[in-house]
């Protein structure tokens, strides 16, 4: 009995000690952040709702931590280019952005190049769970996106629209978009698809897909589908969220998750080594996983993580009985696929896409 009480007391002591330690760590970060005054974040122009979204995020961030920091959001290159840029910058001097936003492929590269700051996120910030640490100690999940086909319903009738990735290259349907379809300039979605289909089937798919394409669209360029410049894109990261966002404005955008389970991108934030404002960077990364920030992310870009209770995505997944892989597991599988065979396969796909 005494032993049990002693063990329980020890647990309570340990828990309160770790809470106290976390609180101290947080306080130190806030004190350091107050001296830094401003933070710089470079990402795609529409990230977290672009300029408008960042105005509200800045207000909520300052309120949460009792700060008066200026958030400098600068529209910059998209995630892949930005990853390449921060690696070069951190290795040669100083990062031009305080933290980085990207998905598995980008963070695998950043992890490999050792440019991410190590932070015990879940121990320091009470609202961050272990599960949210996609790369433990390095990155925090801020939203997930379900990849899929995106098409303009005003230009492609529902009965002629594809229901899956395989339909895109099916000669019964493909004449509708042959020569007009956009494809992403990335190969990662095909590498992800190979985990479901196998490499040979993906090779065959890519061989048929490329000649049907009329251009390349990156994952932030859905407005070019709405405008009709391209009536359809073979894959768009965050297709479902894009559809939700544009529905509000009356745009005829329809998303189809091309595979089951859907290809999922786990978007993470990570503080960078040699960041000009390291304390603010850590606070902002953690803040983006909070309920307040998730609410604003949902409002401005329709994107959230299913790991924060009550988000639209959590409800959507539950309602549609969609089960996703644990983010850290997906990330580990990704990092594993980056070596040897996986890398060769991606290079082969990249060559095909250049045609």
């Amino acid at each position, binding site marked *: 009995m005494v032993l049990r009480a002693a063990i329980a007391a020890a647990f309570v002591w340990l828990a309160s000690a770790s809470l106290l330690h976390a609180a101290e760590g947080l306080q130190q970060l806030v004190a350091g952040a107050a001296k830094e005054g401003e933070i710089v974040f470079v990402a795609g122009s529409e990230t977290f709702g672009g300029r408008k979204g960042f105005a509200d995020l800045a207000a909520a961030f300052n309120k949460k931590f009792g700060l008066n920091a200026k958030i400098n959001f600068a529209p910059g290159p998209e995630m892949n*280019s930005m990853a*390449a840029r921060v690696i070069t910058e951190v290795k040669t001097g100083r990062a*031009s952005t305080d933290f980085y936003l990207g998905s598995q492929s980008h963070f695998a590269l950043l992890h490999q190049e050792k440019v991410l700051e190590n932070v015990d996120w879940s121990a320091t910030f009470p609202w961050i769970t272990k599960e949210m640490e996609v790369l433990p100690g390095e990155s925090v999940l801020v939203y997930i996106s379900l990849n899929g086909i995106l098409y303009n319903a005003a230009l492609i009738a529902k009965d002629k629209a594809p229901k899956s990735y395989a339909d895109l290259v099916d000669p019964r349907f493909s004449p509708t978009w042959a020569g007009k379809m956009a494809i992403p300039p990335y190969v990662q979605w095909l590498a992800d698809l190979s985990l479901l289909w196998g490499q040979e089937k993906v090779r065959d798919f890519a061989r048929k897909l490329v000649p049907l394409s009329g251009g390349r669209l990156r994952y932030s360029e859905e407005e*070019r589908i709405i405008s009709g410049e391209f009536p359809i894109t073979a894959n768009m990261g965050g297709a479902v969220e894009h559809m939700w966002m*544009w529905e509000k404005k*009356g745009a005829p955008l329809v998303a189809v998750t091309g595979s089951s389970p859907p290809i999922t991108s786990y978007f993470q934030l990570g503080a960078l080594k040699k960041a000009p404002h390291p304390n603010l960077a850590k606070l902002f990364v953690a803040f983006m996983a909070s309920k307040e920030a998730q609410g604003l992310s949902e409002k401005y870009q329709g994107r959230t993580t299913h790991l924060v209770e009550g988000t639209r995505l959590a409800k959507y997944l539950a309602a549609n009985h969609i089960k996703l892989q644990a983010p850290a597991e997906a990330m580990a599988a990704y990092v594993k696929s980056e070596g040897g065979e996986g890398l060769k396969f991606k290079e082969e796909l990249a060559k095909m896409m250049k045609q």
Partner: protein
Amino acid sequence: MKPVAAHVDGKFVLAGIAGLSALAILSLLATIIWMSLRTGVPGQPSAYTFNNYTALLTDPYSLRVLKTTLFFAAVTIGISVPLGFIFAWLVERTDLPHKALAMSLLGIGILFPTFLKAMGWVFLLHPRIGVINVLLMRLLGLSAAPLNIATVAGIGFVEGLTLAPLAYVMISAALRGMNPALVEASSIHGVSRWRTLVRVELPLIWPALVSAMIWMFTVALAAFDVPGVIGMANNIFTFSTALYFMINPNEGLPRYGLSGAYGAIMVVFSLLLMLPYFAALRQSHRYQIISGKSYRASLIELGRWRAAGWALITAYFFIAFVLPLVAIFWVSLLPFVQMPSSAALAGASFERYGAAFFDSTLVSAGWNTLLLMIAVPTIVVAASTAISWVVTRSRMHGRIVLDAVAFLPHPVPHLLFALAIAYFALLISDIVPLYGSIYVLMAVYAICWISFGTRVLNNSMIQVHRELEEAAEVGGVPTLRIVRKVIMPLIRPGLVYAWIWTSLSAYRELTMAVFLASPRSQVLSTYIWGQWHGGGLGDAAAIAIVMMAVMSPLVAFFWIFARRQQQVVSPV
């Protein structure tokens, strides 16, 4: 004793500035070659290798990019030079009325950034969303779009249209300096106007046409704006956009070594092109005459063709400038890109403009642009004055070499200098944190436009008689004072002309800026590019319109001022 020391110091200062400028140019070119022989990211250990050249020359993609670039350049030349010739002929050789207005309409095109016009063309002539195409399809009952801007020819067409005024400036200078006696003789012998044009005038200005073609070729080779805005999404890559993706890849790390190999090959290619360029220039000088002001060939009377001449200039102004602007404006009002219709009009608003005015990043980009518009021309004029003084006024050894080095940035695509300075700034970023700062942009702009500054100032200084300077020297006036008090007042029109044109170039530059700008050094052009490239078409359009509206009075003032100076300074 004191005046002599000051005299020596002055020469030393001017030679020092000139030497430093030349050293900067040569260092950046050497950096490109050095980059091409290394692998990995800057600052990491790397063995010297020719692997980058092997990879480049064995990749079929490189060949495709080369073919695309050559075709794009050919179309650019095919549009810009004939148009430039027609405009120059109308203004210089005919009795077209209201020539000042015609020259202004043609000049406005040069002043506004090309990439903004390219954005407009996407909304006008894209096969699926181009307003003109949709209208033509409805009117003619066509099932497919008759025109397509999203092709190599389409991109060349837009580039050619925007470069036509530049071709006009180059060719009109040749027409003005042409020997009128030969034209008069042809006329006296009863040769028709048409035959005179084809048999006499065209051969006389042929060298100028060739040099204009080579100039347009080098511009097209390095152009990023139109291929970037229209080509990238449509899987069309030219030399500059391919290079952009080597430094900003979709996947993996930047390939500085490979881009260096690309650059090194382009440097050699560009320098080789200069041989026919100089040959053409030498030929053109043979046909020029020195005459009294009154000795000009009589102007060709257009008669009823006057209206046709004006219709052509108006149509050009409308197509190349007004239409793309209207298209951008329309898109800026909409929540998403739509064809003009009553439904779309109902959803139009100025919401994006409101947001743009309160955008602190945009304001800071505006300030950075203004800073460059003031600092860059000042540096260029100062460095060019020093170089031109050494080249034209001194008897220093190696002044011919200095002149050649100062001219080097002209034929070499400017984006290579941007690439080299980015690499260099990254290498020294631990010691001097210049990378990503506005000073890097300032430095590369200044280095690249020294070639322009020295061409203008060489011409101006050569006209100042040496006696004035010698008299001051005999009187013991120090060199710097002579330059400041004697030479500079005499070449003031040239200085002002060079300053204004460099300032306007800093305002519209995208190619170099896109490789170098960081959050700290955003300028208006890169900010708009970032919006466009990131998929924010409407925001990019709204900011473009704001940029034009805010800068228009300044640009108009510069234009009027530059035109006054141009009457005194011969164009480059």
